[in-house]
């Protein structure tokens, strides 16, 4: 690294500038998140003025009362419909964003994403089994299936795609994930289509939609996502070392297998948890991790922190876009993230494979 040869006097201002940039990025992300949250509460088939949204939400604070001059239907739209939906986007977006950052770091693969690698498809598959054959009807029951499905899919795809081994190329890991995801989502769709009535509860969920989300799934999943993010931050420094290569990591005293297992747990908790709330959503982690790294540079703690903020921003905006894209219907947030994220995948793939072969 060039900076190590510079005298300390020159290096210090640079480091300070970098830190300023990172803090500025973090602050900007918080502002964006607040804007996205407000939009998520205000936009929809029944638009509510932003000022009314703020007053209605503020009434939830202790001692607050619902303002009398806001139409009751507006209050109901904000509090009963959009607030749980927005909370779902917050939890799932943070989970998928951080999962994307971690999975890219541990596989050293800039094309990685829990959706593209088939992890969320594994979750969805397990949940459809739970609902279709085990008779589970509540999120508190199917979340465990979701975790198991995510973990099994993650292990399978890394075995098939040769993650972390010298033989595996990023493109091949990606391809393995897409193939696995295709198989699993095909079976999931078949199970759901074969018995539509039983799947009424999860039909919107299967296509990665935030619609009709009660508080149940969000409340069930939120603790697991928080735990996953905390664990991700704990292993973020060792992940930095692993990102430079297994040999480098071992030489600075990092146990590579241990970091891998920790990353697997993180991805399982976050991607499995997020899928249990919103269904299989692809490309979100890919975009968020690249955006975060673009702002803060090569530092896992900062990337993970920023991803936790940018993930919900993106998912909320995708959801808002889906609500206004094709009235009176709704385009699911998963389809919107795919439309926005696909060009990112193309750009990264082009950058990654420079020459003709």
């Amino acid at each position: 690294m060039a900076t190590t040869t510079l005298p300390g006097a020159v290096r210090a201002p640079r480091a300070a500038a970098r830190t300023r940039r990172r803090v500025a990025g973090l602050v900007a992300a918080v502002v964006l998140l607040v804007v996205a949250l407000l939009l998520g509460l205000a936009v929809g088939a029944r638009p509510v003025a932003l000022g009314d949204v703020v007053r209605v939400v503020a009434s939830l604070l202790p001692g607050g009362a619902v303002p009398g001059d806001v139409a009751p239907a507006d209050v109901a739209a904000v509090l009963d419909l959009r607030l749980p939906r927005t909370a779902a986007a917050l939890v799932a977006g943070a989970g998928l964003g951080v999962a994307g950052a971690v999975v890219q770091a541990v596989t050293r693969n800039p094309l990685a994403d829990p959706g593209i690698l088939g992890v969320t498809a594994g979750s969805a598959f397990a949940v459809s089994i739970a609902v279709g054959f085990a008779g589970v009807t509540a999120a508190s029951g199917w979340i465990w299936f979701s975790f198991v499905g995510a973990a099994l899919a993650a292990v399978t795809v890394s075995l098939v795609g040769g993650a972390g081994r010298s033989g595996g190329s990023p493109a091949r890991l990606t391809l393995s994930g897409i193939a696995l995801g295709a198989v699993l989502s095909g079976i999931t769709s078949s199970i759901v289509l074969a018995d539509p009535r039983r799947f009424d509860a999860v039909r919107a969920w299967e296509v990665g939609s935030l619609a009709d989300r009660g508080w149940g799934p969000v409340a069930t999943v939120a603790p697991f996502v928080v735990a996953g993010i905390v664990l991700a931050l704990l292993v973020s420094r060792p992940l930095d070392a692993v990102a430079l290569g297994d040999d480098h990591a071992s030489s600075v005293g990092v146990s590579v297998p241990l970091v891998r297992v920790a990353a697997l747990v993180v991805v399982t908790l976050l991607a499995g948890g997020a899928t249990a709330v919103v269904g299989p959503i692809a490309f979100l982690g890919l975009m968020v991790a690249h955006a975060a790294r673009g702002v803060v540079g090569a530092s896992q703690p900062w990337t993970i922190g920023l991803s936790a903020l940018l993930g919900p921003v993106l998912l909320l905006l995708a959801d808002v876009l889906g609500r206004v894209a094709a009235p009176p219907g709704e385009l699911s947030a998963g389809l919107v993230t795919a439309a926005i994220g696909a060009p990112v995948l193309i750009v990264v793939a082009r950058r990654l494979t420079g020459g003709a072969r």
Partner: protein
Amino acid sequence: MTGLVPRRDDPAVDGRRDPRLGVRRPGLGRLRPRGRRAVATAAVALVAVVVAVLALGLGDYPLSPPEVLRALLGGDGPASTIVLQWRLPRVLAALLFGAALGASGAVFQSLTRNPLGSPDVIGFSTGAYTGAILVIVSGAASTIGTALGALAGGLATALVVYLLAWRRGVHGLRLIIVGIAVTALLHSVNSWLLLRAQAEVALSASFWGAGSLALVGWPQLLPAAALLAVLAVLVAGLARPLRQLELGDDAARAHGLRAEGTRLALVLVGVALTAVVTASTGPIIFVALAAPQLARRVVRSAGVPLLGAALVGGLLLLVADVVAQHVTTTPVPVGLVTLVIGGAYLISLLVAESRRTR
């Protein structure tokens, strides 16, 4: 096993000679390669006919194979109505459309010299579907119109994917990842178009998300079959130039072939085959990927066999449609079945390759 990234010494890439052909094998292997290939191809065709007869007997009103044959040969009564009017169009559609997809896959896998270079992986099928939806939504839905829309959509997608994947040449895996990304994008666009259209006209097209043969009857099948027959003649005419292109542009030119013109014609015909099918059924994924490679193994040929790919494609789609109709309690779109089969096949390709490179 063909690598996903072609190598110079790979027989699938360099179709001139296959070392395995010199090895004497028991049974079929004792025949001369050409004779053996003919026997294997005929065997696939025979299996397809047998499965078709069995499939014609399956349903709420089960019929035995002799009853099916009697109905086909001009018998009277309810069995004849059931077989000829209800079940035959669907079985024929599965065979014909599968054959078209298999041939299209063979053309593209030969052109790209990559087993993954098939129209469904690179996104042409989804793009053709976009074109078909646009025509249907604009209210000009006839079989020919929809097929033309699908053709335009498929060609436009082909162009965009190649341009995006181009960077000092086309890198095999980059082409595929760009194709997959474009597929994901177009899938969103298609859902959006269908969602908007549903507000205005009730569309049978919304059923097509995963590709289904459920809506194919004689009125839909006959025009599509006529188009496919024309394309089949064109493909047969281009089969020889395709072999020569496989040897490389220089060798092809030495044989007096205009390489660029031939390639363009092949791309047009290949996309057209996929487009006609997609216009009738919606996107059916992975038949074009798997059929040519399975055919290559069955026929034990060095390159991708066109006729073999078409026959295996027909058989594959027919089997997938039988599974789609009769295995689950409620029928599912055949596209989901091919998605599962093809995805599993893709995984096995990757596993085999990782074993080889280890």
